[in-house]
């Protein structure tokens, strides 16, 4: 409880998360109907990995089914736009499957009839070298779905002879520093890598006390625990929607080993990126 300035006593939020007593009581009071509803909701929130052609679920995890030497994962619309313009346009990529999931923030669409603003999570491999994989994930994967996503993609028998690169964005106000975040030269890039990733990063590492959560953290944790070489490139930006300057902030990664050989024509890719931006621009006024 806490007293506000206005003299009312309110229940103060607890940093320790949900009040577990409430959860326990809920468990005790749960009727068979409540349990049924909860189980139905859990089924609705299940993450499913579907094959492209047949739209049937994969029997095993993606990386158990296909050999993989390199896996690049873009999480969030700016990271996805970067890979679309610079990597996917430089080679022939074949869609292998997609993840379908539902949560309060998004409902993933089919990758076949997709408008660029819809949320989706697709998996692709390079036709000329099918062990190189790419994941474009523009939907939000909720807390209770992140481990499921990991299981469906990586499986329970992790391979060590692959390299993972993750690209994502965070808002600059999340970045903790002695100066005020308003004075930071955003967008800027920071990196986090697992113990087994020996190559240098193309930008400074993320200093404490900064941390990362959500799906990028789930993937990196998995890689750290199972000793898989992985690196996360984090772009701190003050524009979270699709933005040219933010996407271009990922450019230093083009010179790293992670993307070596996957990018052909940078000026052409920049043009494609500009086109992507204009098609997505909505003339905003107070009525839209």
């Amino acid at each position, binding site marked *: *409880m*806490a007293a506000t300035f206005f003299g009312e006593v309110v229940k*103060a*939020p*607890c*940093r*320790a*998360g*949900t*009040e*577990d*007593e409430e*959860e*326990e009581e809920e*468990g005790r009071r749960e009727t068979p109907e409540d349990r049924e509803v*909860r189980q139905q909701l859990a089924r609705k929130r299940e993450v499913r990995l579907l094959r492209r052609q047949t739209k049937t679920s994969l029997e095993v995890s993606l990386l158990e089914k296909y050999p993989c030497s390199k896996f690049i994962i873009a999480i969030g619309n700016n990271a996805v736009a970067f890979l679309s313009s610079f990597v996917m346009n430089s080679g022939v990529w074949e869609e292998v499957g997609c993840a379908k999931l539902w949560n309060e923030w998004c409902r993933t669409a089919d990758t076949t009839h997709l408008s660029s603003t819809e949320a989706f999570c697709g998996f692709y491999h390079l036709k000329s070298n099918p062990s190189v994989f790419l994941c474009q994930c523009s939907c939000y994967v909720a*807390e*209770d779905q*992140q*481990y499921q996503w990991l299981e469906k993609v990586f499986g329970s028998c992790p391979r060590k002879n692959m390299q993972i690169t993750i690209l994502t964005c965070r808002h600059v*106000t999340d*970045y*903790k*520093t*002695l*100066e*005020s*975040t*308003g*004075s930071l030269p955003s967008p800027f890039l920071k990196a*986090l*890598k*697992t*113990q087994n990733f020996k190559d240098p990063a193309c930008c400074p*590492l*993320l*200093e*404490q*006390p*900064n*941390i*990362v*959560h*959500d*799906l990028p*953290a*789930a993937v*990196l*944790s998995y890689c*750290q*625990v199972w000793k898989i070489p992985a690196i*996360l490139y984090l772009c701190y930006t003050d524009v979270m929607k699709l933005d040219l300057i933010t996407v271009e902030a990922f450019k230093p990664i083009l010179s790293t080993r992670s993307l070596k050989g996957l990018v052909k024509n940078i000026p052409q890719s920049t043009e494609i990126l500009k086109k992507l931006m204009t098609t997505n621009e909505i003339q905003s006024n107070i009525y839209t």
Partner: protein
Amino acid sequence: PAVSVGNVGQLAMDLIISTLNMSKIGYFYTDCLVPMVGNNPYATAEGNSTELSINAEVYSLPSRKLVALQLRSIFIKYKSKPFCEKLLSWVKSSGCARVIVLSSSHSYQRNDLQLRSTPFRYLLTPSIQRSVQNKIKSLNWQEMEKSRCIPEIDDSEFCIRIPGGGITKTLYDESCSKEIQMAVLLKFVSEGDNIPDALGLVEYLNEWLQIIKPLSDDPTASTSRWKIPSSWRLLFGSGLPPALF
């Protein structure tokens, strides 16, 4: 630690791991905690600052036969009970002699007697009582009192309640029934700057375990004995824009 009000247990764990320079020996990889990563929270120099840390890690100090589990994020909904089961099953299978849970409870829920006494409390499972009861008695510690199971009802039964304690009560109850030697050490706190509470809780633990030299009569010396980890910087956010003033 238990993830509890003010995160006091977790802050206390940070102090212990940092002061004793404990080495990381493994991960408690689980799908019950919200994922999170960051660089070494106990870094002291450029050289050791780049080891990745995740949400649940195990540290040890072989010379003191001490193992510490640090939890850095909250439970995913409905996963706190499965976590307790996994944790206790690991404790049993790893052959740990004793388990100590560092926790906290809402200070606003204290009754009149508790308001007037020390804010520290302990709880022991029946199996640990035999071996440590005498030592605890000699420390003059206060055992956690029972309170009304349903506070609003006058004739409700009395039981142990730890409001704001997260999984503490579940861990305690399960350890009682599984005959695990467990002690719970907690402090009554409110949310805010809980660093002093964490320092208080480690000193309380130290009275028993003597992990560092016992406190002399000078209470002001307490803060300098425990090494504040580098990750505690900027606990309340980034710097302020000068234009604000």
